[in-house]
């Protein structure tokens, strides 16, 4: 469905990704795990066209995505739920959600999708008129996910959705991602929270220092000596 082929990515003169290739299959939950600075966020920012690969291609259902301007990516059906939520702090929750549905089908079905998101996150309905910037981290993460859903995506990319949340909320968020996936949305998840994500994913890739070093099913990686040593400290 989405393939990343041999991409090299630079920040100025500094290379952060080397020859990264992977594939996201229709309907699955795919996880990229890796330590801080391994290049996980860089990878999905490149898919979102916020960064441009110096080499390599990104294809979505056979169509080239790289070198598209970033604002066109969401219209292809790929939505990026960014690290740190990145809501519009001085807009209400509902306005934030509406911002996810600016184009095409998503705009036509705005009202219906809004109902669906409120059903999924009743808390957001209670807070629909509150300024997004005044909400707690967990609520903001719900709003960020809801905003992504408003675009009726085929693929949702989550960048560290568990960052800075209490463990009980982290479980909620992961359960939510599972629900969204079971409704037919393909998920690409970037996480440092290795135990939980490996347990819920179909497949995973390990990124180390900007290179993909391992891949396998969640179970395979969970039982892999090197993964256990590097990420789980066992």
């Amino acid at each position, binding site marked *: 469905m989405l393939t990343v082929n041999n991409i090299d990515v630079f920040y100025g003169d500094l290379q952060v990704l080397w020859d990264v290739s992977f594939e996201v299959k229709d309907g699955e939950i795919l996880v990229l795990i890796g330590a801080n600075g391994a290049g996980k966020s860089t990878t999905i920012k490149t898919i979102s066209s*916020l960064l441009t690969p110096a080499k390599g291609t990104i294809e979505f259902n056979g169509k080239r995505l790289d070198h598209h301007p970033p604002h066109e990516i*969401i*219209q292809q059906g790929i*939505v*990026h739920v960014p690290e740190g939520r*990145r809501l*519009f702090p001085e*807009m209400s929750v509902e306005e934030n959600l509406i911002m996810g549905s*600016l184009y095409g089908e998503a705009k036509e079905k705005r009202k219906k999708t809004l109902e669906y998101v409120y059903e999924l996150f009743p808390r957001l309905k209670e807070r629909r008129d509150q300024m997004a910037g005044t909400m707690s981290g967990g609520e903001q993460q719900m709003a960020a996910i809801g905003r992504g859903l408003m*675009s009726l995506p085929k693929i949702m990319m989550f960048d560290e959705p568990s960052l800075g949340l209490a463990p009980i909320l982290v479980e909620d968020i992961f359960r939510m991602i599972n629900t969204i996936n079971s409704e037919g949305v393909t998920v690409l998840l970037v996480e440092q929270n290795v135990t939980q994500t490996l347990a819920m994913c179909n497949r995973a890739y390990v990124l180390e220092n900007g290179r993909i070093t391992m891949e396998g099913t969640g179970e395979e990686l969970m039982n892999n000596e090197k993964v256990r040593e590097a990420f789980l400290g066992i």
Partner: protein
Amino acid sequence: MDVFLQTLVAGILKGGLYSLIGIGMSLIMGVMGIINLAHGQLMMVAMYITFALHHFLGIDPYISLFIAMPALFLLGALIQKYTLNPLLEVESILPENQVLMTVGIGMVLTEIARFIFSSDYKSVKTSYSNATFFIGEISFSIALVIAFFIAVGFTLLMFWFLLKTDIGRSIRATAQDKDAALLMGVNSKRITTITFGLGSALVAAAGTLLIPIYYLFPDIGGPFTRKAFVITILGGLGSTVGAIFGGVTLGLAESFGATYIGMAYDDMIGLIIFILVLLFLPGGFKRLTKV
């Protein structure tokens, strides 16, 4: 007491127009993060358009609103698209250089106006230019009252647009988090172009409304850029609600300054308030309202 009320009324009426000038600059400041130092000069262009339409074709200034505003929207959008956006593409150029570009554009506009209309003072005299009506002992300039209500109308329209339409929401989203807006599919170049156009159209409205009661010369832009800058700082950079407070405050300050200190000092009062706000309330009125 009558003098006091008279001064208050004059200040508020003037403040309405100043708000319109300030909102335009605040919008541009919010979305692009730069102060548009050609703001007053754009107003000057709108005033000359209105003047020319009246002088050559006999068109009433209020009708000219429908010509001057679209014209300035177009001029502003073109300025953004062809002079400011290209600067963003060059990484070695700091965004601050966009501000320098606006200074240059202001100068060019001023000199073009001087070339076409010479440096002479012009004015548009209409039947209502000097007409007044009285409520009790207080006189109201009809032109200023009409200008005030049209300004309030445009301000309300602008807020409706910003709050209730997708483009308006995209403008606010871009101002609050540009990258997140990009991820939601907001074409930021298109939004900056529209915003600069809107800001220019609003200041054009202010210029056109001022013309029946004001005079016109090519260098009039500078003082109004300065006023717009003061209003924007008073209101809190980029805050459109703050700009309304900023505009009314400046209008009142100038009005009271002129009455109680002296006509020659009205600019000075505004700037003293400006310095006091910078010293004691950095962040402007926005800090008080949280809007």
